[in-house]
């Protein structure tokens, strides 16, 4: 049992990890076929993960509905929507429109007139919350807060054409002898903010994430970290 439960998964993980690490650098057709085959396997495993997720959602919400816990109404809406979309989807073989006549199916209708507007509405309301949060938080309480506010305001201004026109007017009316040293386009200022200080911070984050991912991947490939054995800390020797 020890072999099946511990050593076999470990051998599979280490072997697969090393093979696909090397595969990336080998352009031989056999190596490419191996990748193609593995991609199909990934899709199949992914489909099982979707099933697992579906079972988890059903268990949580059916449980809440059955025990009439707080928020049971939302669970009911979720379960009804899930069942409705599943019935609509399977009845028209998951096609938005009939391939021959072009007629919109029930799924296509639900997608266009229910899912799509709901999705867009949720994202659109964020704009209102962000505006309200900005008014409440951008206050000149310290130098750092002032810098943050000034940068944010320049970036917001830099995204709109009228501000660009006003900036141009302001800088061209300035002393022409000094005009060369003044950025004539607000775009150039916003591009500088996004392209220099923001980019520097972003690169730092990216490097950190990349190094962290590399270390984690190496630990899993070499069998030092074994989260797939499902034993929590016991998975680590």
């Amino acid at each position, binding site marked *: 049992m020890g072999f099946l439960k511990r050593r076999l998964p470990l051998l599979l993980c280490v072997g697969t990890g090393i093979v696909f690490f090397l595969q990336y650098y080998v352009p031989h057709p056999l190596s490419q076929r191996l990748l193609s085959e593995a991609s199909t396997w990934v899709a199949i495993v992914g489909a099982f993960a979707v099933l697992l997720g579906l079972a988890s959602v059903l268990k949580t919400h059916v449980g809440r509905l059955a025990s009439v816990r707080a928020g049971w109404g939302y669970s009911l809406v979720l379960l009804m929507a899930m069942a409705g979309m599943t019935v609509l989807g399977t009845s028209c073989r998951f096609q938005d429109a009939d391939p021959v006549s072009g007629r919109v199916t029930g799924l296509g209708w639900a997608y266009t007139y229910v899912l799509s507007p709901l999705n867009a509405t949720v994202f659109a309301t964020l704009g*209102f919350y962000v505006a309200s949060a900005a008014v409440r938080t951008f206050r000149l309480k310290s130098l750092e807060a002032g810098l943050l506010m000034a940068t944010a305001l320049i970036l917001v201004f830099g995204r709109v054409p009228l501000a660009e026109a006003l900036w141009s007017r302001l800088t061209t009316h300035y002393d022409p002898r000094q005009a060369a040293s003044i950025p004539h386009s607000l775009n150039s200022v916003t591009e500088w903010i996004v392209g220099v200080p923001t980019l520097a911070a*972003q690169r730092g984050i990216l490097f950190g994430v990349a190094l962290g991912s590399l270390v984690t991947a190496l630990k899993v490939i070499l069998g030092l970290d074994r989260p797939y054995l499902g034993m929590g800390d016991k998975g680590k020797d």
Partner: protein
Amino acid sequence: MGRRRIFLLLALVMWLPMVHPFRFPGLSVTSSVQALHDRIENLPSGANILVSFDFNPGTKAELEPQARAILRHAFKRRLTVLVLGLWPDGWGMTQRIVRDCAATAKLPVKEGRDFILLGSQLGDLNVSLGLGQDIAAVFPRDARGIPLADIPPLRHIRTLKDMHLIVSLGAGEPGPVTWVMFAGDRYRIPMAAGTTSGNVSALQPYVQGGQLLGLVSGMKGAAEYEMLTKEDGSATRGMDSLTLGAFLLIGLVLLANVNDWRKGRS
């Protein structure tokens, strides 16, 4: 000022230009939008480009105008456009956008000849890596159910390596970063991206590193693209609402700070 008043004011100033367009002046083109436009403009007629719609209706307000501007330009340049999506919940929207662009194009554009709707697949690296091996293995049929082997342009387009440009429009994962890592870098295919205003800084390192030759950001980027192609699209019209919204936001922030300062003095 209360949150509800801010919401109401914002809704009012953003709605006003929709009924009465102002056409504010001052839009200028950023270098990364210009670079993508120039690349498409200089591709020979009949060149192949892949446009990946990696978003769902949640971000369509910013990404749909970009998609329309790029597609209209590609159709005008007589390029062969392959379209797919990595977000299955955005595929219905993608088909509508592409077919609508084709129907309203100035030149006759035909599905299966000028553009091919490949389909949508859940997944990231397995899709882009699979397309690098064999497009027909990942998408055996197009959106109309026709086998790829029966679609004339796809007799010459076998893998991603036959593409002259890949454009990924998205603001999350899988999206532009996936394409950069598993297609652009791996197969040395020129890549460009379109994203939301809030996601620009995440893609900026790839622009500066040369992995993305161009980047269209938000509705403003789409309006810049429309300006370059001399099209009067939804982004150009939307800039009025965006302008007034930005001015209101800045005005409210300044007002709140003046109010704080007055309270502090008294």
